[in-house]
Protein backbone atom coordinates (compact mmCIF):
# COMPACT_ATOMS: atom_id res chain seq x y z
CA UNK A 1 0.00 0.00 0.00
CA UNK A 2 2.26 2.74 1.17
CA UNK A 3 5.54 2.84 -0.66
CA UNK A 4 5.86 6.49 0.02
CA UNK A 5 6.85 7.15 3.64
CA UNK A 6 5.22 10.56 3.50
CA UNK A 7 1.76 9.06 2.86
CA UNK A 8 1.19 8.41 6.54
CA UNK A 9 0.81 12.16 7.07
CA UNK A 10 -1.99 12.47 4.53
CA UNK A 11 -5.33 13.83 5.65
CA UNK A 12 -8.37 11.62 5.07
CA UNK A 13 -11.95 12.04 6.13
CA UNK A 14 -12.49 9.36 8.78
CA UNK A 15 -16.03 10.08 9.94
CA UNK A 16 -19.25 9.56 8.03
CA UNK A 17 -22.64 10.70 9.17
CA UNK A 18 -23.33 7.07 10.17
CA UNK A 19 -20.24 6.65 12.31
CA UNK A 20 -20.80 10.09 13.81
CA UNK A 21 -24.37 9.18 14.81
CA UNK A 22 -23.17 5.93 16.38
CA UNK A 23 -20.48 7.65 18.40
CA UNK A 24 -23.03 10.30 19.34
CA UNK A 25 -25.46 7.69 20.62
CA UNK A 26 -22.79 5.93 22.67
CA UNK A 27 -21.43 9.17 24.10
CA UNK A 28 -24.90 10.43 24.92
CA UNK A 29 -25.78 7.26 26.81
CA UNK A 30 -22.51 7.30 28.75
CA UNK A 31 -22.81 10.98 29.54
CA UNK A 32 -26.43 10.73 30.66
CA UNK A 33 -25.76 7.91 33.09
CA UNK A 34 -22.69 9.57 34.54
CA UNK A 35 -24.54 12.83 34.94
CA UNK A 36 -27.74 11.31 36.31
CA UNK A 37 -26.00 9.09 38.83
CA UNK A 38 -23.51 11.70 40.02
CA UNK A 39 -25.53 12.73 43.11
CA UNK A 40 -26.11 9.01 43.95
CA UNK A 41 -28.75 10.20 46.38
CA UNK A 42 -30.72 7.83 48.61
CA UNK A 43 -33.82 9.73 47.56
CA UNK A 44 -33.18 10.12 43.82
CA UNK A 45 -33.99 13.13 41.75
CA UNK A 46 -35.82 12.79 38.44
CA UNK A 47 -32.81 12.00 36.26
CA UNK A 48 -31.58 9.43 38.73
CA UNK A 49 -35.00 7.75 38.72
CA UNK A 50 -34.77 7.43 34.94
CA UNK A 51 -31.27 5.95 35.14
CA UNK A 52 -32.16 3.56 37.94
CA UNK A 53 -35.41 2.64 36.23
CA UNK A 54 -33.60 1.71 33.02
CA UNK A 55 -31.12 -0.38 34.98
CA UNK A 56 -33.88 -2.12 36.93
CA UNK A 57 -35.83 -2.74 33.74
CA UNK A 58 -32.98 -4.58 32.02
CA UNK A 59 -31.97 -6.30 35.26
CA UNK A 60 -35.45 -7.74 35.72
CA UNK A 61 -35.68 -8.77 32.08
CA UNK A 62 -32.36 -10.60 32.17
CA UNK A 63 -33.18 -12.24 35.48
CA UNK A 64 -36.49 -13.57 34.14
CA UNK A 65 -34.89 -14.97 31.00
CA UNK A 66 -31.48 -16.21 32.17
CA UNK A 67 -31.62 -16.37 35.97
CA UNK A 68 -29.23 -14.94 38.55
CA UNK A 69 -26.23 -16.45 36.81
CA UNK A 70 -27.16 -14.68 33.59
CA UNK A 71 -27.42 -11.36 35.43
CA UNK A 72 -23.98 -11.86 36.95
CA UNK A 73 -22.36 -12.67 33.61
CA UNK A 74 -24.23 -10.65 31.01
CA UNK A 75 -25.87 -7.60 32.57
CA UNK A 76 -23.22 -5.12 31.30
CA UNK A 77 -23.39 -6.60 27.81
CA UNK A 78 -27.18 -6.57 27.50
CA UNK A 79 -27.53 -3.17 29.15
CA UNK A 80 -24.95 -1.67 26.79
CA UNK A 81 -26.64 -3.20 23.76
CA UNK A 82 -30.04 -1.92 24.84
CA UNK A 83 -28.79 1.60 25.56
CA UNK A 84 -26.83 1.83 22.33
CA UNK A 85 -29.76 0.71 20.18
CA UNK A 86 -32.21 2.88 22.10
CA UNK A 87 -30.02 5.97 21.78
CA UNK A 88 -29.31 5.31 18.11
CA UNK A 89 -33.04 4.92 17.40
CA UNK A 90 -33.93 8.02 19.39
CA UNK A 91 -31.21 10.17 17.80
CA UNK A 92 -32.67 9.23 14.43
CA UNK A 93 -36.01 10.67 15.47
CA UNK A 94 -34.63 14.20 15.51
CA UNK A 95 -34.90 16.25 12.34
CA UNK A 96 -31.96 18.41 11.33
CA UNK A 97 -30.20 20.72 13.75
CA UNK A 98 -27.20 23.02 13.35
CA UNK A 99 -27.34 22.87 9.58
CA UNK A 100 -27.25 19.08 9.47
CA UNK A 101 -29.77 17.85 6.92
CA UNK A 102 -31.09 15.19 9.27
CA UNK A 103 -29.57 13.03 11.96
CA UNK A 104 -28.67 9.62 10.66
CA UNK A 105 -30.24 6.52 12.19
CA UNK A 106 -27.44 3.96 12.47
CA UNK A 107 -29.87 1.10 13.09
CA UNK A 108 -31.37 1.64 9.63
CA UNK A 109 -28.22 0.07 8.17
CA UNK A 110 -28.25 -3.72 8.21
CA UNK A 111 -24.48 -3.80 8.63
CA UNK A 112 -24.89 -2.19 12.05
CA UNK A 113 -27.69 -4.44 13.26
CA UNK A 114 -26.00 -7.51 11.77
CA UNK A 115 -22.80 -6.67 13.64
CA UNK A 116 -24.75 -6.39 16.88
CA UNK A 117 -26.65 -9.63 16.24
CA UNK A 118 -23.47 -11.51 15.31
CA UNK A 119 -21.84 -10.22 18.49
CA UNK A 120 -24.65 -11.88 20.46
CA UNK A 121 -24.44 -15.02 18.30
CA UNK A 122 -20.70 -15.49 18.85
CA UNK A 123 -21.04 -14.68 22.54
CA UNK A 124 -23.56 -17.50 22.82
CA UNK A 125 -21.27 -19.94 21.01
CA UNK A 126 -18.08 -19.00 22.88
CA UNK A 127 -19.66 -18.84 26.33
CA UNK A 128 -21.67 -21.97 25.60
CA UNK A 129 -18.59 -24.02 24.75
CA UNK A 130 -16.45 -22.49 27.48
CA UNK A 131 -19.04 -23.23 30.13
CA UNK A 132 -20.59 -26.51 28.99
CA UNK A 133 -17.91 -28.03 26.78
CA UNK A 134 -19.34 -30.75 24.56
CA UNK A 135 -22.62 -30.64 26.45
CA UNK A 136 -23.40 -27.49 24.49
CA UNK A 137 -24.34 -29.76 21.57
CA UNK A 138 -27.36 -30.87 23.59
CA UNK A 139 -28.85 -27.63 22.32
CA UNK A 140 -29.25 -29.35 18.96
CA UNK A 141 -30.56 -32.67 20.26
CA UNK A 142 -33.67 -32.23 22.41
CA UNK A 143 -34.19 -35.06 24.87
CA UNK A 144 -36.94 -37.59 24.21
CA UNK A 145 -36.58 -37.70 20.44
CA UNK A 146 -36.64 -41.25 18.98
CA UNK A 147 -33.35 -42.29 17.37
CA UNK A 148 -34.57 -42.72 13.80
CA UNK A 149 -35.60 -39.07 13.38
CA UNK A 150 -32.76 -37.66 15.45
CA UNK A 151 -30.56 -36.82 12.40
CA UNK A 152 -33.36 -34.76 10.89
CA UNK A 153 -34.09 -33.03 14.17
CA UNK A 154 -30.42 -32.17 14.61
CA UNK A 155 -30.22 -30.74 11.09
CA UNK A 156 -33.36 -28.70 11.63
CA UNK A 157 -32.13 -27.45 15.00
CA UNK A 158 -28.80 -26.44 13.48
CA UNK A 159 -30.55 -24.45 10.75
CA UNK A 160 -32.84 -22.93 13.35
CA UNK A 161 -29.81 -21.96 15.42
CA UNK A 162 -28.04 -20.35 12.47
CA UNK A 163 -31.17 -18.48 11.43
CA UNK A 164 -31.18 -16.61 14.74
CA UNK A 165 -28.71 -13.83 13.94
CA UNK A 166 -30.46 -13.24 10.61
CA UNK A 167 -33.92 -12.74 12.06
CA UNK A 168 -32.42 -10.93 15.05
CA UNK A 169 -30.69 -8.37 12.81
CA UNK A 170 -33.40 -8.07 10.18
CA UNK A 171 -36.17 -7.34 12.68
CA UNK A 172 -34.52 -4.22 14.08
CA UNK A 173 -33.26 -3.04 10.70
CA UNK A 174 -36.54 -3.57 8.84
CA UNK A 175 -38.64 -1.86 11.51
CA UNK A 176 -36.51 1.24 11.64
CA UNK A 177 -36.01 1.44 7.88
CA UNK A 178 -39.71 0.95 7.07
CA UNK A 179 -40.78 3.45 9.70
CA UNK A 180 -38.48 6.18 8.45
CA UNK A 181 -39.41 5.57 4.82
CA UNK A 182 -43.08 5.80 5.74
CA UNK A 183 -42.47 9.09 7.55
CA UNK A 184 -40.58 10.53 4.60
CA UNK A 185 -43.23 9.46 2.08
CA UNK A 186 -46.14 10.92 4.02
CA UNK A 187 -44.23 14.11 4.80
CA UNK A 188 -43.41 14.41 1.10
CA UNK A 189 -47.11 14.51 0.23
CA UNK A 190 -47.54 17.78 2.10
CA UNK A 191 -45.42 20.08 -0.09
CA UNK A 192 -46.58 18.22 -3.20
CA UNK A 193 -50.24 18.92 -2.39
CA UNK A 194 -49.53 22.53 -1.44
CA UNK A 195 -47.67 23.03 -4.72
CA UNK A 196 -50.68 21.66 -6.59
CA UNK A 197 -52.62 24.62 -5.16
CA UNK A 198 -56.31 25.35 -4.69
CA UNK A 199 -58.39 22.53 -3.31
CA UNK A 200 -55.39 20.22 -3.12
CA UNK A 201 -53.68 22.67 -0.80
CA UNK A 202 -56.47 22.20 1.73
CA UNK A 203 -56.13 18.43 1.44
CA UNK A 204 -52.50 18.67 2.51
CA UNK A 205 -53.67 18.76 6.14
CA UNK A 206 -54.43 15.03 5.89
CA UNK A 207 -50.88 13.74 5.24
CA UNK A 208 -49.62 16.29 7.79
CA UNK A 209 -51.87 14.80 10.46
CA UNK A 210 -50.75 11.34 9.39
CA UNK A 211 -47.10 12.35 9.70
CA UNK A 212 -47.65 13.66 13.23
CA UNK A 213 -49.41 10.43 14.22
CA UNK A 214 -46.68 8.29 12.62
CA UNK A 215 -44.04 10.30 14.43
CA UNK A 216 -45.58 9.32 17.74
CA UNK A 217 -45.73 5.72 16.61
CA UNK A 218 -42.08 5.84 15.58
CA UNK A 219 -41.06 6.90 19.08
CA UNK A 220 -42.85 3.80 20.37
CA UNK A 221 -41.14 1.65 17.73
CA UNK A 222 -37.75 3.13 18.63
CA UNK A 223 -38.16 1.97 22.21
CA UNK A 224 -39.95 -1.28 21.42
CA UNK A 225 -37.35 -2.48 18.94
CA UNK A 226 -34.53 -1.79 21.39
CA UNK A 227 -36.53 -3.73 23.98
CA UNK A 228 -37.21 -6.62 21.60
CA UNK A 229 -33.56 -6.81 20.60
CA UNK A 230 -32.51 -6.90 24.25
CA UNK A 231 -35.04 -9.52 25.31
CA UNK A 232 -34.11 -11.80 22.40
CA UNK A 233 -30.49 -11.37 23.45
CA UNK A 234 -31.47 -12.50 26.94
CA UNK A 235 -33.26 -15.56 25.57
CA UNK A 236 -30.33 -16.53 23.36
CA UNK A 237 -27.81 -16.00 26.15
CA UNK A 238 -29.88 -18.29 28.35
CA UNK A 239 -29.20 -21.06 25.82
CA UNK A 240 -25.48 -20.54 26.31
CA UNK A 241 -25.84 -21.08 30.06
CA UNK A 242 -28.45 -23.83 29.99
CA UNK A 243 -28.36 -25.81 26.74
CA UNK A 244 -30.89 -28.59 26.32
CA UNK A 245 -34.36 -27.09 26.47
Amino acid at each position, binding site marked *: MADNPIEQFGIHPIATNASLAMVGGAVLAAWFFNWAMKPAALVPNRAQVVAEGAYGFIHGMLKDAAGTEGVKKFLPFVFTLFLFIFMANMLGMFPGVFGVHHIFTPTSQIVVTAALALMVFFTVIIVGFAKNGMKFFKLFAPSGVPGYILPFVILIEVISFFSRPL*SHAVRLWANILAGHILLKVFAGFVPALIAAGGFYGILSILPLAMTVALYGLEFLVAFLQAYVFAILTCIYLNDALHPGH
Partner: protein
Amino acid sequence: MADNKPPEDALSDLRRRVNAARGEGASDAPPPQSPASLAMRYGGEFGAAVIVGALLGYGVDHFVHTTPWGLIVGMGLGFAAGVVNVVRVAQSYSRANPIDPNAPSVPDDEED
Protein backbone atom coordinates in the same frame (compact mmCIF):
# COMPACT_ATOMS: atom_id res chain seq x y z
CA MET B 1 -47.07 4.74 68.47
CA ALA B 2 -44.82 4.43 65.48
CA ASP B 3 -41.87 6.00 67.32
CA ASN B 4 -41.85 3.23 69.92
CA LYS B 5 -41.41 0.49 67.38
CA PRO B 6 -37.95 -1.00 66.88
CA PRO B 7 -36.34 0.27 63.65
CA GLU B 8 -36.61 -3.12 61.90
CA ASP B 9 -40.36 -3.00 62.33
CA ALA B 10 -40.60 0.48 60.93
CA LEU B 11 -38.47 -0.54 57.94
CA SER B 12 -40.40 -3.71 57.23
CA ASP B 13 -43.62 -1.76 57.54
CA LEU B 14 -42.26 0.72 54.99
CA ARG B 15 -41.21 -2.13 52.71
CA ARG B 16 -44.66 -3.69 52.97
CA ARG B 17 -46.31 -0.40 52.09
CA VAL B 18 -43.92 0.22 49.19
CA ASN B 19 -44.61 -3.25 47.82
CA ALA B 20 -48.35 -2.73 48.18
CA ALA B 21 -48.14 0.58 46.34
CA ARG B 22 -46.01 -1.00 43.61
CA GLY B 23 -48.52 -3.79 43.12
CA GLU B 24 -51.30 -1.32 42.47
CA GLY B 25 -49.46 0.93 40.04
CA ALA B 26 -47.86 0.20 36.72
CA SER B 27 -45.80 -2.94 36.93
CA ASP B 28 -42.51 -3.75 35.23
CA ALA B 29 -44.37 -5.97 32.78
CA PRO B 30 -43.14 -5.73 29.19
CA PRO B 31 -45.03 -3.39 26.92
CA PRO B 32 -47.73 -5.10 24.87
CA GLN B 33 -46.66 -6.04 21.38
CA SER B 34 -48.81 -4.87 18.55
CA PRO B 35 -50.30 -7.58 16.30
CA ALA B 36 -48.34 -6.17 13.36
CA SER B 37 -44.99 -6.54 15.11
CA LEU B 38 -45.96 -10.06 16.16
CA ALA B 39 -46.81 -10.91 12.57
CA MET B 40 -43.48 -9.50 11.43
CA ARG B 41 -41.77 -11.58 14.06
CA TYR B 42 -43.42 -14.79 12.80
CA GLY B 43 -42.62 -13.95 9.20
CA GLY B 44 -39.04 -13.01 9.99
CA GLU B 45 -38.38 -16.20 11.94
CA PHE B 46 -39.82 -18.35 9.16
CA GLY B 47 -38.10 -16.52 6.31
CA ALA B 48 -34.74 -16.44 8.07
CA ALA B 49 -34.76 -20.20 8.57
CA VAL B 50 -35.63 -20.83 4.91
CA ILE B 51 -32.84 -18.51 3.72
CA VAL B 52 -30.27 -20.02 6.06
CA GLY B 53 -31.30 -23.56 5.12
CA ALA B 54 -31.03 -22.77 1.42
CA LEU B 55 -27.65 -21.10 1.90
CA LEU B 56 -26.29 -24.04 3.88
CA GLY B 57 -27.53 -26.41 1.18
CA TYR B 58 -25.96 -24.25 -1.51
CA GLY B 59 -22.69 -24.29 0.42
CA VAL B 60 -22.78 -28.09 0.63
CA ASP B 61 -23.36 -28.18 -3.15
CA HIS B 62 -20.40 -25.93 -3.72
CA PHE B 63 -17.97 -28.08 -1.78
CA VAL B 64 -19.31 -31.60 -2.43
CA HIS B 65 -20.45 -30.98 -6.06
CA THR B 66 -23.93 -32.37 -5.65
CA THR B 67 -25.80 -29.56 -7.42
CA PRO B 68 -28.76 -29.14 -7.10
CA TRP B 69 -29.57 -31.68 -4.41
CA GLY B 70 -28.01 -29.83 -1.50
CA LEU B 71 -30.02 -26.72 -2.29
CA ILE B 72 -33.26 -28.69 -2.60
CA VAL B 73 -32.76 -30.66 0.61
CA GLY B 74 -31.42 -27.62 2.48
CA MET B 75 -34.43 -25.56 1.48
CA GLY B 76 -36.80 -28.31 2.62
CA LEU B 77 -35.01 -28.54 5.95
CA GLY B 78 -35.09 -24.75 6.12
CA PHE B 79 -38.87 -24.79 5.80
CA ALA B 80 -39.04 -27.35 8.60
CA ALA B 81 -36.74 -25.23 10.76
CA GLY B 82 -38.92 -22.20 10.00
CA VAL B 83 -41.98 -24.04 11.26
CA VAL B 84 -40.04 -25.00 14.40
CA ASN B 85 -39.08 -21.37 14.89
CA VAL B 86 -42.65 -20.13 14.47
CA VAL B 87 -43.97 -22.76 16.89
CA ARG B 88 -41.34 -21.69 19.45
CA VAL B 89 -42.30 -18.02 19.13
CA ALA B 90 -45.98 -18.89 19.40
CA GLN B 91 -45.29 -21.03 22.47
CA SER B 92 -43.40 -18.25 24.21
CA TYR B 93 -46.15 -15.81 23.24
CA SER B 94 -48.92 -17.93 24.70
CA ARG B 95 -46.82 -18.55 27.81
CA ALA B 96 -46.49 -14.79 28.27
CA ASN B 97 -50.15 -14.14 27.43
CA PRO B 98 -52.21 -16.99 28.86
CA ILE B 99 -55.78 -17.40 27.66
CA ASP B 100 -58.35 -15.74 29.86
CA PRO B 101 -59.96 -18.60 31.84
CA ASN B 102 -63.28 -16.74 31.83
CA ALA B 103 -63.36 -16.44 28.06
CA PRO B 104 -66.42 -18.09 26.52
CA SER B 105 -65.66 -21.34 24.78
CA VAL B 106 -66.58 -21.78 21.16
CA PRO B 107 -69.14 -24.61 20.90
CA ASP B 108 -67.72 -26.15 17.73
CA ASP B 109 -64.17 -26.06 19.08
CA GLU B 110 -64.32 -29.50 20.69
CA GLU B 111 -63.62 -32.76 18.99
CA ASP B 112 -66.76 -34.84 18.84
